[in-house]
């Protein structure tokens, strides 16, 4: 099995699963709504689709090796309490009510140091984000007390806290520009991660205001090594990071653009205009993108794919997803013969399916084109199908 990167259609939200050939999984963000909330495609059950791609451990519990929360916004952690086990593994419920199903075990958490920040005017948290924060702190405390952690309690902090909250956590900390390949206690020879964000928080309050939750997103460049090909695929993913941050990323990396190159790019903030511009797409007459931010997002390699994890993108004033941002990405892709995908449109607006890229030595590969189901939108992607029988 070749490794893959799967983008789940979760409206204007993110949910991305990296699955390595040894079945190691890295899940970035979730947006698991109740079926009733999913107006666009009620037939698509994102939680079930996610579980279909996960392995179960020897106790039959579904698990992810890593859950990375890019930043604690609701559209990135919705459903955490309902679908994931939080707390020590010894409290796992192996016999939940049938309608709830088994919860997903998180073997290791990856988080920015934002969990150490107090909630305040500029830092409000939804219930799932609070639960995430509590779980992350529980794991940090185990580390502080024991100097080590076990599977189910592991945590990795991505980025230093400027106020010293990450002091003493050096063993479980990676800093900006670090490249690491340890996943849930094991070194991978198939994937490595370069830390591009969060950008360290400035002392200047005004800037910190700018660096709200969205701004503090974890930004990683994943490098896949396949069949001896060291940089078989570069995947750049940056949560909801906005224009100021991308300008900073460019400033920090313009001397070494290989650090921000990609074959796969997930557009920041669901293809938002604000990731590339200070202007307003809906209010300003002639909104202009920031050239530095665009440069940071333009390091596409031959044939690259750009993916917007969002609703379908329409030619209107909406943002996100934003038609103008898509146009900018299309122009980046044009120069390298690449292709644009939107999770809300794959393979069909009426019947979305997880968008899976296979990672080969020759680069990522988009899904094969398939026929649409004949049934209408109500049934969605579910084909009518007769079970096979025995005679």
């Amino acid at each position: 099995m070749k490794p893959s990167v799967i983008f789940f259609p979760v409206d204007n939200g993110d949910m991305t699963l990296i699955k390595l050939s040894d079945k190691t999984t890295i899940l970035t963000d979730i947006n698991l709504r109740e079926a009733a909330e999913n107006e666009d495609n009620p037939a698509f059950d994102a939680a079930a689709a996610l579980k279909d791609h996960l392995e179960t451990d020897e106790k039959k519990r579904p698990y992810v090796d890593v859950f990375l929360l890019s930043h604690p916004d609701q559209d990135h952690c919705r459903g955490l309490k309902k679908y994931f086990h939080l707390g020590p593994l010894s409290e796992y419920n192996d016999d939940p009510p049938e309608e709830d199903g088994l919860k997903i075990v998180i073997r290791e958490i990856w988080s920015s140091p934002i969990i150490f920040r107090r909630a305040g005017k500029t830092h409000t948290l939804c219930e799932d984000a609070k639960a995430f924060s509590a779980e992350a702190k529980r794991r940090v405390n185990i580390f502080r007390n024991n100097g080590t952690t076990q599977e189910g309690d592991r945590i990795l902090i991505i980025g230093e806290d400027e106020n010293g909250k990450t002091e003493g956590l050096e063993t479980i900390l990676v800093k900006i520009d670090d490249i690491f390949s340890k996943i849930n206690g094991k070194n991978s020879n198939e994937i490595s991660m370069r830390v591009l964000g969060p950008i360290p928080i400035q002392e200047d309050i005004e800037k910190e205001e700018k660096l709200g939750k969205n701004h503090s997103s974890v930004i990683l460049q994943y490098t896949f090594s396949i069949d001896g090909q060291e940089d078989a695929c570069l995947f750049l993913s940056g949560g909801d990071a906005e224009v100021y941050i991308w300008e900073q990323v460019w400033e920090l990396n313009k001397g070494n653009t290989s650090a921000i190159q990609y074959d796969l790019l997930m557009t920041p903030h669901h293809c938002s205009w604000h990731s590339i511009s200070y202007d307003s797409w809906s209010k300003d007459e002639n909104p202009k993108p920031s050239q530095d931010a665009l440069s940071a997002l333009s390091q596409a390699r031959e044939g690259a794919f750009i993916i917007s994890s969002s609703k379908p993108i329409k030619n209107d004033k909406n943002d996100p997803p934003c038609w103008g941002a898509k146009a900018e990405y299309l122009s980046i892709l044009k120069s390298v013969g690449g292709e644009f995908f939107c999770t809300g449109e794959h393979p069909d607006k009426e019947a979305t399916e997880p968008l899976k890229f296979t990672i080969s030595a020759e680069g990522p590969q988009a899904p094969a084109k398939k026929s649409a189901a004949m049934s209408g939108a109500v049934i969605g992607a579910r084909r009518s199908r007769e079970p096979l029988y025995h005679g």
Partner: protein
Amino acid sequence: MARNKGKTIKKGNKNVNGGNVLSQEADCAFKTIQSHPAIVGGSPVLRPGENGAFEISFKIQVSMPTRSKQKGISKTGVKAQETVTMCFPKTYPFRAPMILLGRNFNSTLPHIYPLISSDKQGNVVPCVYDGPLEDLLHQEEDGLSKILDQLSEWLKKAAVNDLIDSNQGWEPIRRDNTFGWLVYDISELKDLVQDKAGALAFRCRVLLDRHQENEIHFFSGIDYQKTCEITPFLIQNSFFEENRHPFLYISMAIFVWSDLGMTADGYLAETIFCLHDLYERAREYGCYDQLKDIFVSLGAAIKKATPPHNTFYVPIILCARRPCNLIGDTSPLEIIPYMAQLQVEKNRSPFGEAAVRFSNDSPVYPIGHRHAITSKLLRQMSGGKGELKHGNIVHIGCGSVGSKIAVHLARSGQGPFKLIDKGFFSPHNVARHALMSPSEIAGYPKAVLLAEQIKTFQMKAEPFTTNIASLCFDPESKKKAFPEDTQLIIESTGSMAVREMLAALPPEKFPGRILHAALYNLGQMGIMALEGQNRNPNLSDLVVRYYDLGVEDKDIRKKFQDSPNALIRQSIGHGCGSHTMVMPDTRISLYTAGMAERARQVLENNNEEKGELWIGRLESNEIQVNWRHINVGQTDILKIKASHSWEIRILDIAADQIEKEVAKYENIETGGVLMGKISLPRRCITISSLIEAPPDSNRSQSSFILGTSGLKEKVLEIFNSSGGYLNYVGTWHSHPNGGGPSSLDRACLERLKKQGLGAPAVGLIWTPAGFKTILDEGKLS
């Protein structure tokens, strides 16, 4: 299917071909293909063939990895647009189309079918679906699109060499749609492979079947235990045809392998059509010399033997050493079978040549492999999990019920078997039996025939045709028939004597757990009784419990009451009759399937300690059996030495009732009447239930005096509702402060005897330290 290279029709050309109107199927297939999102590069091309067959060619877009997109071709040689031809047979949509990729398509990829149609030689047939394409065609509303989806996915994977997961191991060459099969046990064959290259010949049989459309099908089994030297004598005694359909040849199979270290690390598509191709393939695998040499020996032997014909069907098995273990296997050896139709070269001058030669054009057909029958295979097909500990299954009784259970178990890979039955297979047995008896074998003992049948499953089965009682009472024979590793004894004799004898044998003298199977009342009811661990509860306990159930269950009661007429003497010959139950084979199978399934579960997972009683009842529709299951706990066993030795057995529910009654009265003596079954021949009294002390009884701290008011009626009620099986067997009372029977107790037993309720009778006394008994042996005293 012949290929029509002539006329083609493009879309818009009115579906007419030289006056032949194209079928609706062709038109629909064309439109479906055209509308598929992966189809690119202009309109597909439709070519009508003979008799309504047709072909559609089109270009399909392949999803490429990023760095191959601009080049238009992937590292594995898959192009961004591939040309595909789908050949639809005249029987479409009830047979699936064949998918052909171009002649230049990389044929060294895995998941490619062997090409079995010589006119398509050079084309590559991808295996796009793990199952018959026909199923895919009909499983969904738009099955043809689904096939195209699979093709699109297959090509996508082919582009990045992702068709197999190399972590799982080497995938053997696909051989699903070939010209037949060769049957052998792959592990036995692999064990013969040595480090040095070599070849072996085995005796084998070849069945050749030619279907109407000149399709050839081979079926062949080799006897890998019998390697043979290729001699003229062997040739003279081989290769003759038997005049029957399909043709049967006695032949030899040739097996060749390469030197250790000669690794065949490339996938080679199955494109072998003639002997020349086979030689080339053997060269790739590093066993060309071995194949050539053995053909020289064969040619020499044929030359000397001068057989009357020039064609020889010989299965050839090549063995390739792969770079890693095969999927799901612990060995890197891949065994690849073919059927060669060797033709002696005619035009060569025979002078001076010591051996005949075989034409390089001799047809060679790829054939598939079938595992030889082994209990492992049978178990795998039956869904058995893990390693099975093979202990013996002893069948006492090989009649209709027993034979069906035995064959069901054997088919699921259980065994080996010891089969005990003194009866002979008589023509009337054919009506209800697992054996398919041709008339000539009627007259053999049933046990022998059933053993023969089971041995064809490559499983051990030993028949015993002596009377079961003689077997059990002769230590030597008993040891043979009931070996120490006996897992389960299945008794289905329909004989109460056998049942009682088995029940009477103490566990220390007769180990093994007994499953008793019996049908009642023309198959209206069936019971299956499974003894607990260490034979407690035993067979007779379970039967008593079964009759006790009838007391509360009216339906069971009714079925006993109808029962006496069920066994009728059936005429099975002039002046000969058999006491048997008349019912169809199907009805017996309704019960035996469930019984065999429970036996299989017990054999697979034998940790239940309790005894089990299963009562099956035929529903009024007569196609359904409803099983009721109760667990039966351990029986309390009391041994008594009176003027003879006796055994008192207290069933779990009776013991429970006593405990409850004692608890109710704490320090006061209480008691009641015992119901159950007396067996004088076995000198055994089994207690099944209690009757509460009649209202005129007297309970006090120092005595319990049993009343008699209404007692007779109660006893009679139980007697009747158990079909006359359960009766008064004695009384019980408690001594909460301990102590054995008092003179009063003995007097009481005497008094009850005069009531004429029954005799012998037991006087059971409950004490905190356990039961104590007094016994009236009745006429035996």
